[in-house]
């Protein structure tokens, strides 16, 4: 909310800055206390809640769920904003299909070179071919697999003492956590490729594939400040006239929502790197495995959000 205030209507407002700093300081202090407790946590003392309704449930677990509730509100506000604007602003292809402006026969049409405000979903670019959609689709599978690898790490950490060799346990836990970290890093890497870099598709004669480039969203001009966006589809074949669009709202919604999710993945990578290091030292056993479980809740939540972001921002 404070970040929203800071950049109200695209204008920087210094008066909100102290609130932002306080917010970041509170989060930082919370994370520091969590880390300090977790570093020395060996499972011998796990504080339990004594009050209703969370009686006899681990306090850290309850805390994580309350935190996830606040996260749900953040993403709900982003989704509801997206839904509202998506319904309230006509799609650019709908506007284009109205045809060229004519004061008598087509007063609702568009004019060559005059920007129209319309909603251009990122899916128009991303879902335009299998190659365009590949980074997002691979990311979806990467997140699901990472959700699975982290529960496997938890499962191995949870195995009763004596039922498994301790060295095998150590290796399994840190390898599963390491795999989760790698998958999370792959997610962000592919996102950067999709946003800024693009990629080259080589010719494969065997399947009749021609050599071509997949451009990034950035090079396609899908930008939050673009009020003169041109898509190669929006050309009138008869006259050669171009429809230009103000896509600031649609691009902003896409980048803010997927960017907020990406930021959560980045935070997750930091947490996962710490957990992997701790697992490598052999710190996890059935008593201390709850640390993986609590972080796992956060990581599954990140996956959960992507389950909604992917179809509605990338495919639809």
């Amino acid at each position, binding site marked *: 909310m404070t970040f929203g205030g800071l950049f109200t209507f695209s204008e920087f407002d210094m008066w909100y800055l102290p609130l932002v700093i306080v917010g970041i300081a509170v989060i930082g202090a919370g994370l520091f206390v969590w880390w300090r407790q977790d570093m020395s946590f060996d499972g011998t003392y796990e504080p339990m809640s004594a009050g209703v309704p969370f009686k006899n449930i681990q306090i850290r677990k309850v805390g994580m769920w309350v935190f996830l509730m606040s996260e749900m509100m953040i993403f709900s506000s982003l989704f509801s904003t997206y839904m509202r604007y998506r319904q*309230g602003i006509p799609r650019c292809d709908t506007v284009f299909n109205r045809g060229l402006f004519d004061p008598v026969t087509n007063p609702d049409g568009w004019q060559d070179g005059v920007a129209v405000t319309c909603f251009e979903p990122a899916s128009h670019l991303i879902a335009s071919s299998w190659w365009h959609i590949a980074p997002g689709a691979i990311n979806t599978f990467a997140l699901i697999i990472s959700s699975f690898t982290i529960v496997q790490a938890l499962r191995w950490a949870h195995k009763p003492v004596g039922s498994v060799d301790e060295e095998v346990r150590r290796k399994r836990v840190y390898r599963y956590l390491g795999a989760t970290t790698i998958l999370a890093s792959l997610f962000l890497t592919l996102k950067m490729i999709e946003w800024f870099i693009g990629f080259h598709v080589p010719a494969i004669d065997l399947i009749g594939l021609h050599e071509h480039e997949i451009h990034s969203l950035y090079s396609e001009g899908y930008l939050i400040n673009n009020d003169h966006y041109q898509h190669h589809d929006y050309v009138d074949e008869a006259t050669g006239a171009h429809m230009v669009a*103000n896509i600031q709202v649609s691009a902003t919604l896409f980048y803010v929502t997927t960017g907020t999710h990406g930021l959560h993945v980045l935070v997750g990578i930091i947490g996962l790197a710490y957990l992997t290091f701790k697992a490598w030292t052999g710190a996890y056993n059935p008593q201390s495995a709850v640390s993986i479980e609590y972080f796992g809740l956060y990581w599954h939540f990140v996956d959960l959000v992507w389950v909604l972001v992917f179809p509605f921002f990338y495919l639809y």
Partner: protein
Amino acid sequence: MSHKIMGIDAYWMNFYGLMILTLIEVLAVGANLGPTAEGIGMTERQITLWILTIIAVPKFIMIAAIFMHLWGENDSGILTLTALFPAFFIIIMVLFIGLTHPDAGIGLPDWCRPGNYGL
């Protein structure tokens, strides 16, 4: 969690299910659904949205129930209620917007249209 679904470990079963549903999602977007959509009086975009929504719901539930342990644990009930608590505020928010602007579903007031922020 050491539950089984149809005799198979719940984590593995959930993993297989999620992978299959995601594959269907991607294929649904790539497939030509135009003729099917016409047959039932919808546009291709509408039918795609329905498919994506119908698939997203079980995926959401599968991750929350199995991976996040909201099913089959002693504290699952109260933690599920905790997770659903924000839904109350989300519904209030949607109702509030709907009541304030009866045409919220199809139109936006001028003040929240691009270019009219300063009003």
